[in-house]
């Protein structure tokens, strides 16, 4: 705590929107004005989100999406067994689902991080 004020308190001019709304940053103003600087920030946000989505979609295509080709081309895989159950049944009937959920969780975590970075850059602090 600072020391209590000495003498008459300074006069403060009270204006309307001071308390509730945090002050907007310059970057937010640039985005609103659709200036080139604002556009650069928007494009970088969109690009990072799109790159993330495309990257995880590529992982999906290279894992689950490649299975038909694998089953067709790799002969022994068609009738391989795990614990008495054919591999194709295990993979398509069960193992695909944890992969889908894992990719979804990874996406949400990274997408929210991208948005936090953007917020730190643009938003009120």
């Amino acid at each position, binding site marked *: 705590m600072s020391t209590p004020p000495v003498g008459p308190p300074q006069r403060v001019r009270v204006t309307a929107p001071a308390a509730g709304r945090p002050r907007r940053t310059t970057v937010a103003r640039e985005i609103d004005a659709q200036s080139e600087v604002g556009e650069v920030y928007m494009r970088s946000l969109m690009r990072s989100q799109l790159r993330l989505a495309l990257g995880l979609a590529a992982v999906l295509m290279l894992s689950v999406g490649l299975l038909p080709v694998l089953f067709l081309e790799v002969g022994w895989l068609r009738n391989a067994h795990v614990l008495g159950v054919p591999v194709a049944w295990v993979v*398509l*009937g069960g193992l695909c*689902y944890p992969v889908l*959920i894992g990719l979804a969780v990874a996406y949400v975590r990274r997408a929210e991080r991208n948005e936090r970075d*953007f917020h730190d850059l643009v938003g009120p602090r």
Partner: protein
Amino acid sequence: MSATAVTAVVAVVAVAVGTVAVGAFGLRLSRTTSDFYVASRTVGPATNAAAISGEYLSAASFLGAAGLVMTRGVDALWYPVGWTAGYLLLLLFVAAPLRRSRAYTLPDFAEFRLGSPAARGVASALVVLIGVLYLIPQFRGAGLTLRILTGAPTWVGAGAVALVVLLNVAAGGMRSITLVQAVQYWLKLAALLFPLFFLLGRHGEGAAGAAARLHETTWLEPMHGPHSLYLTYSLILATFLGTMGLPHVAVRFYTNRDGGTARRTTVAVLVMLSAFYLLPPVYGVLGRRVLPTTTDPDAAVLDLPRYLLGGGGADVLTAVLAAGAFAAFLSTSSGLVLSIAGVVGQDVLGRRLAPVAAFRVAAVVGAVGTLAVTLLSGGLGVAHAVELAFAVAASTFCPLLLLGIWWRGLTPAGAVAGMVAGGTLATGAVVAVMLGAAPSGTAGAVLSQPALVTVPVAFAVMVGGSLLTRGRRPAHVARIMVRLHTPEVVQVDRGGFRARGAD
């Protein structure tokens, strides 16, 4: 009526009465136009995820998937995998921006993004088309189920589902539907899980020669039969990309609080669907082992208790499965009728009637019209009919959403051209199949699963058309991108779009 029939009918009636009762409870809460369309966005993520899953798990998931696994074997497992993976792609590319657009329906999104009444009109027509395509197998499944249980003609079950859905939708709108759907997810999961405890332990003798069919290589091993690579990838493309374009799925995302909640809801949906889709293949394999070859694939799930147990136990289990199946028909049909009614109510009747009255009239028109189409059209497997609806959605709304959200260059003319091209080709294939066309060779494969051809065509036309009309990009596309992609906590100008029917 036999004892099976009586217990099953009691169970089905209980589900129907319960649905209407929960709906009536919601009715007391829903008062404004916005309540009718999107529950005023007061639904939490867990409830909303259960509601999305409950709405999504249709006749095709509950009855059709098991039947397909029984007849076609391991390759049919791609259906449930694709139906789930569709939500992953929805999450990656669409969920948060779609919610942030504050559009209620897919036509709202088209109007918001493109500022074009023509684009909105095409999108509205497509919502009705896809909705009807998806409703037909629900009504047919209901008719089939009641016929198996009681011997009643198929129009009885179809008509009963149409009636309950109408009572519910026209009375309560989305708020009551959200509660109903959330309850029905758990009902369906329980209805499919509980009988397995009794069925799995039994080694009933089964139909003659059935056990041997379990070891046929064409059934047991993947990628058999002509055009298997094309058919599998076409199915993958239709289901992976079609989910985001289903009108009753998209409408659910407006009930999330914000973009971040929309994402977390989608993850919960993926978990719930994954849990459910572990079960139908088990029924398919059981059916392969004990049911005779003459069994209607869509009836396999319901026939199993009778073959494996017999007696009073079988009656109870059949009743449980029938209740689950009716929950599936009711929930998906409710969502679809709601979407059709939302679009027809706003776009066609909205200028002549008060919003709530327009919505109710539209619901009646939508459900009764589809019922008529269902009864008039010929036989088409439940799961395959649903798959064609996915193909149309993937060839129309998927490119609209992906390009609209991520590419500034999309123009109204390009979007309309792409949706019309993809929609016409995919619908042409659907109509040809419904009319019984079955050419041999590659043409037959393409007709039966058109997505691998029609989706790239739709994308190409949409991109090409937009590049040709480069001068006609919407004026405020930069502001629109700000609205779609900035998180809600950031204070920026998001423009002033308000969906029709908002309050």
